[in-house]
């Protein structure tokens, strides 16, 4: 009997429960917000979304209600699970400084799904994070995409999402080591990418011994993995674009504090942007960041998402919901700000078929709020991931 119950419980966890989430306002992020809407989740997937008057809640569905309902939020770039809360050497795995370029380092080999900051952001409605190796060296390693209720790193939605690079002052190595200058950074990257191109041209692959680093660079030139470039100054942004075009890379521009100075060039490049946290501290290469950049990217028609980013001190992580709030208040507006942490983030990360909006067929990831989600004094009152109400202290 006991084991039968356990089996049922396990099955429920695996495929999700049947849940109906009813909201006075439902931001589906696929069309106009619904007034008095219902989201039906069956077996972990969204079955139907519509006005309460048109959607019958089948018997046996657990019903949750809230003032405002949104898709589970997506943090488009974090270091959660690698950069732990204590900020001690033993819980900081986001940067390995033994070499300036280590694209072979996998995020899944460092990700700690129990790290308490993951639970922290989940309590605000964040259900999906793009996380992994952080900024701080020329190429720090790979990133991954994972739900915030994952029990193991192997549960990741995308175990190898992007390869993380940094350009500008943040990538400078200690004195006497390379790269010591911006030019050297690019020379080093070009040399590796050319090597990768030439290796791919060689017909006889059977003879080659495996080289994890070379394989990672080859994935970049083959376009199998995007290069996520953290870069802030206008000249460095243009350098990143130049590099991307030379090698036909899939590039994602990250940070881009000085984007307003080179909007036309970013737009022409076709590269998407994961913008720095709206409240990031303005110093160093990011001295000229502005709370209005999100609204300028939006006006220019450049696809972008918001992020919690990397923090080296207090607070150890930002909350992407709050970053969106300040962007909304500085010209972006509520719905576009919500899109930058839901649907736009999903599209940018290539996971829009599963998450980012409340539409039939997508994962049953839903966030519940007792008011405008972006408002300081609103609370997140519930979080559902894959149809399962996540045990979390709502905040």
């Amino acid at each position, binding site marked *: 009997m006991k084991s039968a119950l356990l089996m049922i419980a396990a099955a429920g966890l695996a495929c999700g429960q049947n849940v109906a989430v009813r909201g006075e306002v439902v931001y589906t992020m696929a069309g106009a917000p619904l007034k008095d809407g219902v989201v039906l989740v069956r077996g972990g997937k969204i079955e139907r979304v519509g006005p309460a008057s048109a959607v019958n809640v089948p018997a046996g569905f657990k019903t949750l209600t809230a003032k405002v309902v949104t898709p589970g939020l997506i943090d488009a770039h974090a270091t959660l699970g690698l950069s*732990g809360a204590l900020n001690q050497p033993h819980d900081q795995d986001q940067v390995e400084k033994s070499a300036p370029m280590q694209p072979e380092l996998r995020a899944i080999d460092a990700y700690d799904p129990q790290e308490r*900051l993951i639970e922290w952001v989940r309590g605000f409605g964040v259900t999906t994070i793009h996380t992994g190796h952080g900024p701080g060296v020329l190429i720090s390693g790979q990133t991954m995409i994972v739900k915030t209720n994952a029990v193991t790193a192997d549960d990741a939605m995308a175990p190898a999402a992007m390869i993380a690079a940094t350009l500008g002052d943040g990538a400078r190595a200690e004195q006497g080591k390379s790269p010591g200058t911006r030019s050297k950074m690019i020379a080093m990257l070009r040399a590796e990418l050319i090597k990768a191109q030439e290796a791919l041209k060689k017909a006889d692959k059977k003879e080659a011994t495996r080289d994890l680093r070379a394989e990672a660079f080859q994935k970049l030139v083959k376009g199998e993995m995007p290069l996520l470039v953290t870069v802030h100054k206008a000249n460095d942004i243009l350098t990143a674009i130049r590099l991307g075009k030379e090698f036909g890379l899939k590039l994602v521009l990250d940070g881009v504090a000085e984007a307003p100075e080179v909007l036309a060039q970013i737009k022409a490049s076709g590269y998407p942007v994961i913008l720095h946290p709206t409240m990031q501290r303005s*110093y160093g290469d990011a001295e000229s960041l502005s709370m209005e950049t999100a609204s300028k990217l939006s006006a220019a028609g450049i696809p972008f998402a918001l992020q919690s980013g990397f923090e080296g*001190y*207090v607070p*150890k992580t930002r909350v992407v919901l709050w970053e969106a709030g*300040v962007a909304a*208040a*500085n010209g972006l507006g509520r719905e576009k700000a919500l899109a930058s942490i839901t649907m736009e983030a999903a599209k940018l990360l290539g996971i829009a078929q599963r998450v980012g909006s409340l539409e039939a067929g997508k994962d049953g990831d839903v966030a519940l709020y007792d008011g405008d989600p972006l408002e*300081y004094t609103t609370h997140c009152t519930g979080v559902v991931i894959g149809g399962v109400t996540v045990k979390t202290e709502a905040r």
Partner: protein
Amino acid sequence: MKNRATVFALCCACGLWGQTRPTAFTGARMISIAGPEIPDGVLVVEKGKIVAVGPAATTPVPAGAVKIDARGKVVMPGLVDSHSHIGQPEGADGSAPIQPDVRVLDSMNVRASTVQKARAGGITTVNVMPGSGHLSSGQTLYLKLRPGQTIDDLLIKLDDGRIAGGLKMANGTNPRRNAPFPGTRAKAAALVREQFIKAQEYREKIRAAGGDASKMPPRDLRMEELVEVLDGKRTVQHHTHRHDDILTVLRLAKEFGFKVALHHVSDGWMVAEQIAAAKAPVSLIVIDSPGGKMEAQDVALRTGAVLEKAGVLVGFHTDDGVTDSRLFLRSAALAVRAGMSREKALYGMTMANARILDLEQRVGSLEKGKDADLILLSGDPLSVYSHVLETWVEGVKVFDRADPKDHLLAVGGYGAGKDGDIHIDECMKGSEDER
């Protein structure tokens, strides 16, 4: 050179203008902090002071007053930040763990962009502190963010002629280093006690001299400052995070009878009753997530609510650059999110901090006779969508979001990090008005 002369002349014009005509803010929702919110209020300021505040129906606008239509806006007192590092302040060096002789006064850059950004955040009074890497890193400065070009323009002179400020102290892990710095918590407390006992003895010698200059002990800058602390003339502004460290501060304050305000207080929710019993005020930091350092691993958004319930006087601070002065109101809003009352949270941005800085007679609320320090907000102070539109210090507008240069400071962008001249456009308008 010519530029500097022009600026000086404008300052003079500004000062004169400020004294000639009263200014009346009308139509705003007024949050005076001293009483209930007034839906349609009038605030009259003259010669840098508040001369009247109340409902429109009962508060006449004086004839000849410059009227500022603030309908649809919110007026509240200028914010008081009880712990900040704007203006690139320096304090003690690495030569000793306790250096009360060192002054922020001798290091401040009032033209720093951080100072101008604090005005953009609605901050009108600020306690600028040296760092927390020492048991005592020196004397802090309480400043009014007047549109001055030199540190002297921003100082607050006390009735006895001294310059207003506190003494920064810290415990926990930040001051831990190799000798002569403490290596343990117990050593830290012993070093502090040793200095305060010396100061008690120094004070005894002064008392024994009975005013006879020939019998006075040789001047000792460190001892003089600690004597001010022992005499209650200078409040200890004490960095402390962990619950046991908080209690150590209270223990030392009781032993030596000094006035203390507890700063940061990450574990405050664990020892709220003890803080309340000691009647120690708290200057709280609100940050976005726990951790970032070992001592802050249990920091909680609900600390403000817990301390309020225990009856503790709670103010907030930016600790700028740890949090951004321009987003200071966010601290109160997040505390309310976690259960603090709106009333006490707004009090914590203003009057509580005024009391923590012993300036409650001059700033912190909109009351007749107080300094005309106020902000105009586009909406409710606790809403993410509200912006500080204008900041006024002693009747002079020091920030105007409608001015492109001020807007740049408020939101950031190319050039916003540049330290430079203070914007005094309002004064220019005023001087034209006079002509």
